């Protein structure tokens, strides 16, 4: 059934806001195609509805959002060949964990971790700057190696933010990267499987690079 002007006018506001669906919408659009007056009425209300969206409160997406968006815009970016866990990692991590624990009373049983999750740290512009490693054990730990970090990043302290799958954040103590060659780590009080992403933030809270853990 074709709608008349009298049918469409009461629906105009909801049509303008995209709130009419299904056959009712199809019939209304059919009328608008043939009726310049009703079409102009709905379009003018739509412009008002569009402007109202400017008043919507902003909200902060999770770490790495912009990186994920950019990756989606450029899906053809060449994939980096998988890297093996560096041999030095186990030793470095063992030293790091031993030092970070109170009094150094606990050391890792093995210097070569076998249960390590790895993910690439990307800057928002898509530059591969290093890796994050997470070891699920007792204790669990996170270790970041950023050999490709830019020099400009060296001058200020950084914060590592761990985002969990339930949306909660862990903010780990400040770190300093030495002239673009950074390696840093900490023990973790959560299951590694609960970690969704790891991000490096500057003092203003901007994410400089991040990695999203899969699986």
């Amino acid at each position, binding site marked *: 059934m074709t709608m008349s002007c009298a049918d469409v*006018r*009461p629906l*105009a*506001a*909801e049509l*303008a*806001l*995209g*709130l009419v*669906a299904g056959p009712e919408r199809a019939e209304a659009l059919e009328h608008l195609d043939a009726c310049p*007056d009703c079409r*102009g*009425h709905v*379009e*003018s*209300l739509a*412009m*008002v*509805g*569009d*402007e*109202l*969206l*400017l*008043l*919507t*409160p*902003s*909200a*902060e*997406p*999770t770490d790495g*959002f*912009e990186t*994920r*968006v*950019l990756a*989606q*815009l*450029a899906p053809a970016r060449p994939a980096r060949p998988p890297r093996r866990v560096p041999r030095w990692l186990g030793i470095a991590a063992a030293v790091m964990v031993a030092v970070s624990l109170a009094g150094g009373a606990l050391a890792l049983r093995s210097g070569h971790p076998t249960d390590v999750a790895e993910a690439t740290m990307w800057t*928002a*512009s*898509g530059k591969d700057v290093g890796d994050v490693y997470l070891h699920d054990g007792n204790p669990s730990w996170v270790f970041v190696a950023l050999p490709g970090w830019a020099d400009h990043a060296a001058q200020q302290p950084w914060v590592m933010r761990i985002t969990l799958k339930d*949306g909660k954040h862990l903010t780990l103590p400040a770190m300093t990267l030495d002239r673009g060659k950074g390696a840093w780590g900490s023990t973790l009080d959560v299951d590694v499987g609960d970690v969704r992403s790891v991000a490096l933030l500057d003092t203003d809270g901007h994410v400089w690079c991040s990695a999203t853990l899969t699986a």
Partner: protein
Amino acid sequence: VWAASDEALLAGLATGDREAALAFVRRFQRKVFGVALLILGDPGRAEDVAQEAFTRAWRHAVTFDPRRGSVATWLLTITRNLAIDAVRVQRARPADLVDMLDLTVADLRPEPGDIASRSDEVSRVTAAVAELPEEQRRAVVLASMYGRTAQEVSELEDIPLGTAKTRIRTGLIRLREALGASVAVDER
């Protein structure tokens, strides 16, 4: 590139310039995510919708028409439409809507440092909304910002469906007059 206009960044996005794309996403991501979150009430789904909104903007950047509105309203409208589509698939809504609505209505003002506050557009719209009678303001905010249908507004406000439709329609028409939209219309 970071100081470029919204239109310039959109043009850069359309041509695949990575720096422009990054600046565009960084400039609008909080607002886009905010629109999706307000409608969906679920951060995970809102982020999916926000991500898709940027993809749509990238694919359809050439369709942007500055005569119809700003880049911000164009992008946020894409986001709202995607969020409403997502709601239709799975109608999960925030339980604390009324509290959120009260907060939103009471706090309609530009945010310091936010993209939109760089123009007087937000101030103009805010002033127009503030002039609406309270019941029309609530109905318009529910429909336009929260993506609620007239039926849902009727249930949330505990008013007849016809009254909900009238409040939304009358409120939008008043706003159009206040904002100076130029299309001659029937004021029924």
